[in-house]
């Protein structure tokens, strides 16, 4: 019979310990975690970045990744966007009674592999089990600490004339997950961009003057640009024809009635760079893993203060507001 999570695994007793020792510890093994204290003792006295994120994606495995990889990348990427190099992560599980133990093993292994690749240590964590019907299989929360390597990043640093860069195709993760959810995932379909931004963000920072970086997760590229413009006298102008969109993502979005510009990414970043450094930053991003398809996709002007604007492939121009509500599947 398939081994599944039971309420005992969340008891705090023997089964909890078994879960930690047989599955999690061997995968996340490192000296800060090993004592299994109430918290990890860490060294470091630099300026720190601190971030947290929770992951509830269904299905937990999707083309291009799974919730374990996503949980590490999500917080790693948030830290990277502040200009930090991520160092330590917490990893907390909320499991639903009946969740297969083998699935948990796969998810933890995937998280561990991603953490190793990014040089981050999972140093603390927690496990809770909720009754069947009270959760959706598995939820993960991660929090992370990074050491700040760049300073002065932020909305205030954006200037008229700056270049807007996107590190790869827009909207892959949202399209891949929604297709998987609709039971339409197959070979040739959209693949999530779920991945780390560590290398591509560090490459950008070392190549020129970066004003701000953000990973366009929920709400997509459009929402990030609308947020950059909000409350400023500036305009984020996006050139539709310059935005890389994977053909499978474009086709899936057409099918599902979604817009790739509003569809979530989980391994892309929008960066705003000084105009004189834009080409160098672009070249550096393209050299980094995950940044091969980076492109300059727009520029900062002051034509429509406080707004993001799309210059369409047809030559039209319209407002690019932030996403309101969830993107829901539509009829025709």
């Amino acid at each position: 019979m398939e081994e599944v999570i039971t309420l005992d695994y969340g008891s705090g007793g023997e089964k909890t310990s078994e879960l930690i020792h047989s599955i999690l510890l061997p995968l996340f093994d490192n000296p800060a975690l090993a004592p299994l204290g109430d918290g990890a003792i860490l060294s470091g006295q630099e300026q720190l970045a601190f971030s947290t994120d929770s992951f509830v994606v269904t299905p937990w495995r999707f083309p291009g990744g799974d919730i374990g990889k996503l949980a590490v990348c999500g917080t790693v990427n948030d830290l990277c966007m502040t200009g930090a190099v991520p160092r330590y992560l917490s990893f907390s599980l909320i499991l639903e009674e009946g969740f297969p133990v083998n699935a948990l093993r796969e998810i933890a292994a995937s998280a561990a592999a991603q953490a190793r690749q990014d040089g981050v240590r999972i140093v603390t964590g927690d496990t809770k089990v909720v009754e069947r019907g009270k959760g959706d299989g598995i939820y993960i929360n991660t929090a992370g600490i990074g050491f700040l390597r760049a300073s002065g990043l932020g909305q205030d640093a954006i200037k008229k004339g700056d270049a807007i860069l996107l590190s790869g195709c827009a909207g892959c993760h949202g399209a891949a997950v929604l297709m998987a959810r609709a039971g339409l995932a197959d070979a040739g379909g959209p693949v999530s961009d779920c991945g780390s931004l560590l290398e591509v963000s560090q490459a950008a920072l070392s190549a020129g003057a970066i004003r701000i970086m953000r990973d366009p997760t929920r709400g997509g590229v459009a929402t990030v640009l609308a947020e950059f413009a909000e409350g400023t006298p500036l305009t984020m102008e996006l050139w539709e024809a310059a935005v890389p969109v994977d053909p499978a993502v474009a086709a899936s979005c057409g099918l599902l009635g979604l817009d790739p510009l509003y569809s979530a990414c989980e391994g892309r970043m929008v960066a705003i760079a000084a105009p004189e450094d834009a080409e160098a930053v672009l070249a550096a991003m393209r050299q980094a893993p995950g940044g091969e398809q980076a492109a300059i996709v727009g520029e900062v002007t002051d034509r429509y203060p406080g707004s993001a604007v799309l210059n369409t492939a047809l030559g039209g121009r319209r407002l690019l507001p932030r996403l309101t509500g969830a993107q829901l599947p539509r009829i025709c």
Partner: protein
Amino acid sequence: MLCESDFQNPAGTRQALDRIRDLAAGTGPIRIMEVCGTHTMAIARCGLKSLLPPEVRLISGPGCPVCVTPAGVIDGILRLTEDPSVTIASYGDLLRVPGSRRGDCLLRRKAAGASVESVYSAMDALALAQQRPDRQVVFLGVGFETTAPGTAACIQEACSRRVSNFSVLSLLKQTEPALRALIAAPDFGVDAFLCPGHVAAITGSQAFRFLPDAFGLPAVVSGFEAGDLVFSILELMRMLAYKKPDLVNEYRRLVKPEGNPAARQMIRQVFAPCASQWRGLGEIPEGGLAIRGEYAHLDAALRFDFQPEDAGEIPGCRCSDVIRGVLDPQDCPLFQTVCTPADPVGPCMVSGEGSCAAASRFRQLS
């Protein structure tokens, strides 16, 4: 997968736009109505209005299936969610559409504990019923001729599988009777029609022949990419300029003159035309499709004694004028003041295909 990118910005689009400008100088003000929500969104998304000359105005007609569903019907559906045995399965569009009380919608009811599921097709709803034999799954069959064949196929499938906990509430509408009602209205003021490509794939382009023949109105069946729209509008402008109204099928890669006879036969087997209430247009003879007697056991209207409530519109909401194309979204007193995509009042702002949502989400810039 089939990509439509070739039609997004084909060669000659710019020249076509120039030609539209030249023709418009001769015709004077022209009002072209699209009657498909997907057209409304496609026009807004590609920024077409910012490229057309001021003489050419595109206005949205009753093309959003959830917008034309009357408030009282939505109220009836919301009441149905109060039946503890019922799970409502609906296309995502309908989840946010309010009835006669502001903010009360299926999504709100779901958050408050009602059993409401979003599905992509009628078949998904049938599968849900089979997975959940303890629930009465009611599929909200909303849409035009586009969704009717799939809904019909699903009803036939449910019948042959003898699924007893599944039923369909038919809110289906027919396009032609609505266009005739619109044209007959005293305040009708449209010069030409951009006809819905998806509907025509089923009905055939010939189904729109009555527009030029009976009413002298130029009509073009159009696809949904920017290039399709530009060339379709150019075709309409030519007919208007030379005063030769006709029917043209621009969407030939998908639409045949005779449409899809097999799909139409399936619709006829399961549904019969019936009088139907449309938001904005009132009762339209043959404006809807009702489930035929042989499938009565799968008709949610009978199973749950469904009665639309006798409800008026939300106070101040002028969606019914917007749906008829007599009021531009921007001219509604509530537009972007009280009624916004984040806090919508009426269905035209709520629906992903509503003209007010299109006008505010994709505000055209000069």
